[in-house]
């Protein structure tokens, strides 16, 4: 039954897409398209939740006579799929809601409306798919739809380049997955996931498949060094689509990875876990460092997505390592942390992109160094964005912290692992995670501080005005969810339990019975956390302190020019900008990671010219990997291109040589 509902909603979405083609230009069309998407997503969430909680998420399957004829299109909802359905459609619903209002500012609706529902449909299908063909078809269809959305503002050359790199990387990933599935399916084409589960593979298959899978799913999720397309493509799309791509599509990639590695291959090995740990750690650190260096806030958010993907993959690596050594409970803990973080990230990243979209439509610029002081102009957006920043910075009592905390709990269990490599590596990765978590805080202090606080750096933002109500509702919804998940983590963990159990066969202890709704991953004596109480304490004591002081001390307030050590400067250019905020971090890390170099050009004494600080930094991954590749292809095509300009005689000689060659082969054939 849930499968049918899900498939019907996918069909409804596709129908909506067609409507979008027809009625794109009319305002009614906008409301219709986004409204329908919202309703459909809502229905899907409900059915998935019911399936997950009430039915305990036992697998329900369905086969349609589509796709590869003798296999058909298989669909399946188990607990894992149900969970990701919730993630996908939650993001989808919020984005649709946001779009109803935000879409008004869209100058090319006919390039957005048709593809938005199609994109949602594609993501849903990936989660539903139960055979390789359907999976890859939906996977690539998802990429295609999102590509079209990235190309919505195609007149901008930057966007076009982003779209190109994105689609090429996507099809590279798809080809890698294609090979992986070919490997798992075997020569006689057992393309159904059921067949793959049942199949027994040669020992060399597993590592190869895993590597290919890392290429495929990793390139979609944005693992370093396959991440280059992400910070280009995500910001290029309209903001609610960016929210979907960053918040949801990357999760779909994570789903694909979990599905294959934990469910289909299901032959965990500790070195695979180690590989994931390494990649995840590197991704997290590099992603957040890039984000810190950015001054384009949508690109900053995209880079921070890379960081979160890194965290998720670290958790997956831990889960693999634990599972390989038979530590079921620990593996369950790590996987729960991964799923929890995926959910959290989809929430606050969407929220942040919504805020970014609001700022973008209000000011028309993505450059933080031209913004500032927006908290006065757009208070509601500012508050929602602040909640998002606190959540993504993994600060209690919001949801980001809970998953981070679970991750550290899992890391603290690693000493039990027998392999020395893991023993030594996990603490190091833990330190890296802590480092990147702290950098995230720095990054979002920068993002919020430079964009919303301080004084307006340009007239565009002193003229900005708050977005209309519907987008604010979407943001408020997600902000509330961030808080709820933060203070009631036990509910989420229990809700995740069936999904975890469905792939690992183990689950975390039930949290609902713990008094005061606090969470206890392993044992009361070992570690516990209670977001609800923490929240209550902070709220109470803050209010208490305020009341006491206002009651017994003074409550007088006077506005005055800023003090600033006696050197107040009216010029807003004297504020710290995004670039200058990142300067200490750039000094410490940038010189290594980005070959960053700063040089100050002082005017000669006596001249009134301003001193200039020039900052130059390079993306080593691009320089080291992609640029050479592009160059190689260029050279090869240049060399071969000679063959287009030969004389007929030379072409004849080619034929002649081919003939002689084949005759020689025949003459020498045994």
């Amino acid at each position, binding site marked *: 039954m849930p499968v049918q509902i899900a498939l019907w909603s996918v069909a409804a979405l596709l129908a909506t897409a067609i409507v979008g083609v027809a009625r794109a230009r009319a305002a009614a069309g906008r409301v219709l398209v986004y409204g329908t998407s919202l309703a459909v997503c809502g229905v899907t969430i409900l059915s998935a939740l019911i399936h997950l909680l009430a039915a305990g998420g036992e697998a329900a399957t369905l086969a349609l006579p589509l796709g590869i004829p003798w296999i058909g299109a298989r669909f399946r909802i188990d607990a894992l799929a149900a969970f990701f359905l919730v993630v996908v459609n939650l993001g989808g619903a919020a984005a649709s809601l946001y779009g109803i209002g935000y879409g008004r500012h869209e100058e090319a609706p006919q390039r957005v409306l048709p593809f938005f529902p199609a994109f949602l449909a594609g993501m849903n299908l990936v989660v539903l798919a139960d055979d390789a063909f359907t999976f890859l078809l939906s996977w690539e269809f998802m990429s295609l739809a999102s590509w079209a959305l990235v190309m919505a503002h195609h007149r901008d050359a930057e966007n076009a380049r982003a779209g190109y790199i994105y689609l090429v990387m996507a099809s590279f990933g798809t080809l890698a997955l294609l090979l992986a599935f070919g490997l798992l399916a075997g020569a006689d084409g057992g393309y159904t996931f059921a067949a793959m589960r049942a199949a027994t593979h040669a020992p060399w298959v597993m590592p190869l498949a895993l590597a290919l899978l890392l290429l495929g799913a990793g390139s979609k999720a944005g693992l370093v060094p396959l991440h280059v397309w992400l910070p280009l493509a995500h910001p290029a799309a309209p903001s609610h689509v960016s929210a979907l791509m960053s918040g949801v599509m990357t999760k779909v990639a994570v789903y694909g990875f979990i599905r294959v590695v934990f469910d289909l291959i299901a032959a965990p090995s500790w070195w695979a876990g180690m590989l994931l740990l390494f990649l995840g750690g590197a991704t997290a650190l590099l992603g957040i460092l890039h984000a810190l260096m950015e001054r384009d806030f949508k690109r900053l958010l995209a880079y921070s997505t890379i960081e979160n993907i890194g965290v998720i993959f670290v958790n997956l690596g831990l889960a693999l390592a634990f599972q390989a050594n038979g530590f079921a409970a620990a593996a369950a803990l790590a996987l729960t942390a991964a799923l929890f973080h995926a959910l959290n990230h989809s929430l606050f990243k969407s929220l942040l992109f919504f805020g970014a979209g609001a700022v973008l439509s209000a000011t028309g610029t993505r450059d933080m160094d031209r913004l500032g002081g927006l908290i006065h102009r757009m208070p509601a957006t500012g508050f929602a964005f602040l909640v998002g920043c606190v959540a993504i910075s993994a600060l209690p009592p919001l949801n980001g912290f809970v998953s981070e905390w679970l991750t550290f709990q899992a890391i603290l269990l690693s000493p039990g692992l027998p392999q020395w490599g893991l023993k030594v590596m996990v603490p190091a990765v833990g330190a890296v995670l802590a480092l990147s978590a702290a950098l995230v805080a720095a990054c979002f202090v920068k993002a919020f501080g430079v964009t919303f606080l301080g004084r307006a750096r340009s007239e565009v933002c002193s003229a900005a005005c708050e977005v209309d109500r519907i987008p604010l509702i979407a943001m408020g919804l997600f902000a509330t969810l961030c808080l709820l998940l933060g203070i009631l983590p036990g509910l989420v963990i229990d809700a995740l339990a069936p999904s975890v159990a469905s792939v690992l066969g183990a689950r975390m202890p039930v949290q609902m019975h713990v008094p005061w709704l606090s969470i206890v991953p392993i044992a009361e004596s070992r570690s516990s956390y209670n977001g609800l109480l923490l929240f209550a304490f902070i709220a109470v004591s803050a209010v208490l302190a305020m009341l006491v002081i206002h009651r017994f001390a003074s409550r007088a307030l006077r506005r005055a020019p800023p003090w600033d050590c006696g050197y107040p400067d009216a010029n807003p250019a004297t504020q710290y900008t995004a670039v200058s905020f990142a300067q200490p971090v750039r000094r410490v890390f940038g010189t290594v990671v980005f070959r960053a170099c700063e040089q100050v050009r002082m005017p000669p004494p006596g001249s009134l010219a301003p001193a200039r600080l020039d900052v130059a930094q390079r993306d080593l991954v691009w320089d080291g990997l992609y640029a050479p590749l592009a160059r190689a292809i260029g050279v090869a095509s240049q060399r071969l291109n000679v063959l*287009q*300009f*030969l*004389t*007929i*005689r030379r072409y*004849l*000689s080619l*034929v*002649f040589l081919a*003939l*002689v060659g084949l*005759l*020689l082969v*025949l*003459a020498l054939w045994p």
Partner: protein
Amino acid sequence: MEGLAFDIAHLLAGGLVLVSFMMLYQDRLYALLNLFALHAVVLALSVAWQAHVQGAPHLYITAAIALVFKAIVIPVALHRIVQRLGIHREIETVIGVGPTMLAGMGLVALAISVMLQATPEADPLAREDLAFALAVILLGLLTMVTRRNAVGQVVGFMSLENGLILAAAGAKGMPLVVEISVAFSVLIAFIVIGIFLFRIRERFDTVDIQALDRHRGERR
């Protein structure tokens, strides 16, 4: 009788290969045309002999076509063209004669070695014939490849095609031989006309194919 028949067929086929070699060697246009005429005559003879041996009268038609069309009409036509176009008498060959001859030798060796893999049960006459025919074909291709000049290439192509006719005639009781030879004559007629209608000349003032190649959709 059988032996004699075999020897004569062998002789004629070998003669054809020999003439091909001479054409390969020859770098004067008129002489090349004359050699081609000779080539055609030898072909006609050998086809006729095959007709006699196999007792297949229809092959005489093929022989006749070869004799009339290839040995007389075409060479004359090409003579005309060469005069009309007034192309310089020298054929600038691509590589020197020596290497060309060596290559030709190699090709013949290759042809024979490939052919001899065939089981002897296939009747020896056909087998030898095919070996020589293959040699002629390869040599014809070589001629085409080593000539810069359209007429030279046409001649090469026709010698190649002679090899085909030889093979077809050699194949005992092969149907459609006449049709095929006719079809090929048509094809060659097309080629000759292609030059003769001066399409190429009026556009490019020469039959030199390199001139053609200069006019190309995508210039570098």
